[in-house]
């Protein structure tokens, strides 16, 4: 009898309202996505501060349960969560740049690097110059 790896177990929690303690309102579509603060905090110092640092209003009032993320599309956001939960990167050409953008913003260093590599590897002369420039720009930021 095998033991289920932890990432498979954690994957069942992905966007699962059960035991969730934060709700994200994502994108222009205002889609509700459920999250678990503990798991998120492990991946991003921003979330860690936001959810757990008692110095700030958010934790002081114990009221943080809804976070608005208007500038990222739900699909990209879900793949960010999936990385946070399972350490697996699932990006599509469509979401790649948005994931990169969000990883930068949330200081998710590993995700950012992985995405960047992925994009640069799959880049060819038929890909949009725009993509290339944006990616380089973010790399520059790093």
């Amino acid at each position: 009898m095998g033991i289920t790896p932890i990432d498979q177990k954690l994957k069942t929690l992905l966007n699962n309202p059960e035991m969730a303690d934060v709700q994200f309102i994502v994108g222009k579509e205002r889609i509700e996505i459920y999250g678990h603060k503990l798991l998120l905090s492990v991946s991003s110092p921003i979330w860690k501060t936001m959810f757990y640092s008692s110095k700030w209003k958010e934790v002081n009032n114990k009221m943080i349960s809804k976070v608005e993320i208007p500038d990222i599309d739900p699909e990209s956001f879900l793949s960010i969560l999936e990385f946070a939960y399972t350490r697996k990167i699932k990006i599509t050409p469509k979401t790649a740049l948005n994931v990169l953008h969000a990883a930068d913003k949330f200081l998710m260093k590993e995700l950012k690097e992985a995405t960047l590599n992925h994009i640069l590897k799959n880049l060819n002369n038929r890909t949009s110059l725009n993509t290339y420039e944006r990616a380089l720009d973010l790399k520059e930021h790093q």
Partner: protein
Amino acid sequence: MSWENISIPVKILKPPKELEKPQVDRLWGLIRDAVEEIHQMNASSLSFEEIYWTCYSLVIGGKGDLLYERLIQIIGQHATKQADMISKISDEYFLVILNAKWQQFKLQHLMMQDIFMYLDQFYAKKKQKSPVFQLSMQQWREKVLLQENIKDRLLKMLLGLIHMERNSEVIDRVLMKSLIQMYLEVSNKELDFYTTEFEEKFLLTSARFYHVESQDFISSNTCGTYLKKVSLRLKEESFRVAHYLSKSTGPKLLKACEDENLKEHAKTLLSMESGCLEMIKRNKSDDLKLFYELFTRIEGGQDSIIEVLVDFVKAQGESVVKEETIKEKDPSDLISNVIGLRDRCEILLKKSFGNSPVLAKSINDACVYFINLNDRLPEYLCSYLDRKLRMAFKGMSEEETNLAMVRVLQIVRFLKNKDVFKKFYEHFLAKRLLSGRAISEELERLMISKIKQACGQQFTSKMEGMFLDMKLSNETIDGFKNYLSTSGSLEKLPSVDVNVRVLTQGFWPTLPAQKALLGEVLNSYCNIFTEYYLSAHNGRKLLWQYNIGTAEIQAQIGSRKYILVMSTYQLLALLLFNSTEKLSFKTILQSTQIPAYDLMRALQAMSLGKIKILKKSSRGKEINDDDIFTINRKFRSKLRRVKILAVLKSETEPERNRTREKIDEDRRLLIDAAIVRTMKARKVLMHNDLIIEVTKQLNSRFTPKTSLIKMRIENLIDRDYLERFENERRKYKYKA
């Protein structure tokens, strides 16, 4: 999935544009307000998320420079304000307020660190500038801690508190820890603020403190008391480090403390009236332990203890091994004292010096020195062991016996001339085995096995050979008795219970085979035995040694019968009185042919000792040729079995000299062998190299004198084993 035919959602991914001024002002305004709130301690209403995104937008918008510069300004202003306020506080509350302000400042800037995470990550790092929190620490350092009204006052008060604590007053350690920690927290890789502004000065003050204290204390206390105090002080300083100083200060502080308390006074502590030497003399092992523990902490401390210890052991040893300490020719006390001194060293080593291998070696060297001062010590050791073994270590348990043997062997290991020990041990062993007295074979064998352990297999081969001879002799004599009873040769002879020991030449210390006239009966027995033995062992040669035999006879003196136990010589002399009443010494000498010296001793024992079987005509101990001996008819003894002992001299001068000569002879042979062996291997060798090589080879047995080796080389040249080079006289060549 392929990357072809993909439309990139450019909408969201527009590259960030340089922000316009009004927008920048608005965002900066938000941040400035937030920082102000934090500095006012009003942060509980601030939302992290909002401020973080504001900061993020500014950095993304290319305004990192602006944000960073303005932050420095704003933090600097805040720190200056704090400094102004703190500097006005009176001494009484100065430290407490400073600490409170510091804690506040730290908390505020930890919050700032949160907000400016993105700035740290993507602006400061890239431009190789300090992260925001370090910036804050730097501002506190420069604006507050270096402010003229604060800097010296803070240091002085901290050092003052430590001084108070050293004088047994209670101080607020938590406050100390927090403030000293502050020095550490505002330090960084480039600038070790703690070391330069606090530690250096603290170490100086500490050294000064102990300089004064130690001088005062040592002049009015004993060494032991002083060391206890120092030990306590060292412990206190260790606790001080643990409680409120940086770990890295520990070794430096202890060193300063040790230097002032111990190194400065090392000479005094070693030589003062109650110092190291005195502690050793009086076996104060606890004080000495402390002495050692403390002194090993300072440079050269161990060496100076070793010096005192070695001098003591050598001096003590010199007096212990002096010939003059021997009373009545009994060296037991000398050996006991040597063992005692060695034991004492061992105990000190264990109890006081933590079994340090370095000290153990020094002690051993000192022992080697004094033990080899007295040339006769190996002989005394053997005589000591002889006494113990003859009495089978009376009064000692198995364990004690074992220990006693081990102790003697420890001394043996230190002997340079082990060959002397070996010869004398063999000599005494032979005497014990042939004395006819019961011996404890178990103890003898145990002793030999211990010698073997210490000196090697070869060393004890002769001793073991002696035991083998004894065993074979028993078998031989059983066979002989059997032969006597069956062969019928007994019929013509009176019955004598004969016991013969056949000693293999080479195993036993050689004694000159001396002739003596045995008389008819004994002579017949000897002849029969010779016949019997040679028939069984063809080709062997038997030499009789009457001088070491013993006899038991039944004698009637007056009305009583006695069993007399005596030496063979004594028996031969006594037998003469069966046929006559009176005999002169001269007559006895002629009739028995016993060497005069031996006969004299034999007669002395029978006429001058406690048991007087014979009466001598003249008074005094001397025996003259004309002295007449008669049987003492008045002899009485309560015991039926009477032992006539040899004159009380366990080792007579001639015997001793004989053993010595034998040792010298053996040494010459060993040196010859070593020289020839070496030259055969090397063919050509310089004089000095040959001496060194030979000495090295022989060292485990004895230390050959260079002069003796030289003599042997000359001798070997004469005997054509070696020759000198014509042109180079100090060079030898092996002649095959």
